[in-house]
């Protein structure tokens, strides 16, 4: 429930590829610079020198920019990861609080949560080992306590709440847990 493997694997692949590229870049640069120094010692007045100095500078700059870009990517991925975790924690906090405010019974809380997760009546009934009629009646009571017309409005209630209030900061959502 707390994972987003798709985003994480994609991010990992991307940073791994960038790192391998950076390593190859560094290898090439070290070999090239070694070669240039060798040339210089053999033939210090070489007209090649200016050309080689420019290429060396470009290669070194390439490594520095590559490292910067990779750092930015890694930090961006981490920030996304954290924002997702915070948002997830925040949303479940919001849901819990709202269920309490509506005075849902424990059974209604469970059913309401499953409904929010997108399960239909048959699935909820099977999961809870209850009759479909019971679940339908519980859902009706939940909707009426919440003052919404049905499942779509019920789900929209929380999305709207999350979007409207903005994502609470990390500290706010961890106070409870810590």
């Amino acid at each position, binding site marked *: 429930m*707390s*994972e987003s493997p798709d985003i994480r694997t994609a991010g*990992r692949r991307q*940073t*791994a590829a*960038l*790192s*391998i590229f*950076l*390593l190859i870049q*560094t*290898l090439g*640069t*070290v*070999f090239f610079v*070694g*070669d240039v*120094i*060798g040339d210089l*010692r053999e033939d210090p007045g070489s007209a090649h020198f200016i050309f080689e100095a420019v290429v060396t500078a470009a290669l070194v700059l390439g*490594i*520095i920019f590559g*490292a*910067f870009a*990779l*750092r930015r990517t*890694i*930090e961006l991925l*981490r920030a996304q*990861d*954290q924002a997702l*975790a*915070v948002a*997830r*924690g925040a949303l479940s906090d919001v849901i819990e609080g709202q269920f309490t405010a509506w005075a849902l019974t424990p059974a209604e809380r469970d059913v309401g949560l499953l409904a929010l997760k997108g399960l239909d009546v048959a699935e909820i009934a099977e999961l809870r080992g209850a009759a479909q009629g019971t679940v339908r009646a519980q859902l009706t009571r939940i909707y009426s306590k919440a003052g919404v017309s049905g499942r779509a409005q019920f789900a929209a209630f929380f999305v709207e709440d999350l979007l409207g209030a903005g994502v609470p900061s*990390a500290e706010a*959502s*961890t106070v409870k*847990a*810590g």
Partner: protein
Amino acid sequence: MATPRTLASTAVGASPSLWDPVVRLTHWGIAASVLTNAVLDEGGSLLHVSVGWIVMALLVLRLVWGVLGPAEARFSAFPPNPVTAVRHLRQLVAGRVRHYPSHNPAGALMAYAFWATLAVVTASGLYLTGGATPMQVAEEKAAVASGDWSALIAEGGGESSEEDKSLRHTVEEVHEVAANLLLLLAALHIAGVIVEGRVLRRSLVRPMLLGDVRRGK
């Protein structure tokens, strides 16, 4: 420990659950290269010099990353400090250690010792080969193999005097002693990783390999 459920792995103060790919690539690249050059291949061979140049590149990349990388890979996250290193070792013996956002102080000292020794080994190796790149070494060896000994004469020409010879001998010694020091450090290092992992009750190696694929615990 009441860590917040959602932030357990990103919280400040916990060491990374996965080192970034540059740290991992340079670590295992350097480890494999050191073993190859110190144990497996013949000193001065084409393979030896090629692997030596690869070590140089890995070292350069890791040092650049120590300035430009993410927070826990930067030198500022694990400053060399013998006092805290000794304190850490004492805590380790007592069986209760602090958590650090990067390497622990003893591990940090070990990393700097590795890097400094690697610099000595590569610098002395460069001196021994006259700074020849692997490409040049390959050319020379091919020339000698085809019966053209002039490459050897050109190489030997620079060290005709007694002084040069004894300097070369000293550098050879330095190179070998530093290589053995690397092996000694590696043994200490692996022992340290095992002991630290025991006391912390978590694998240090996993974050250095592929990390916790399923994070959180």
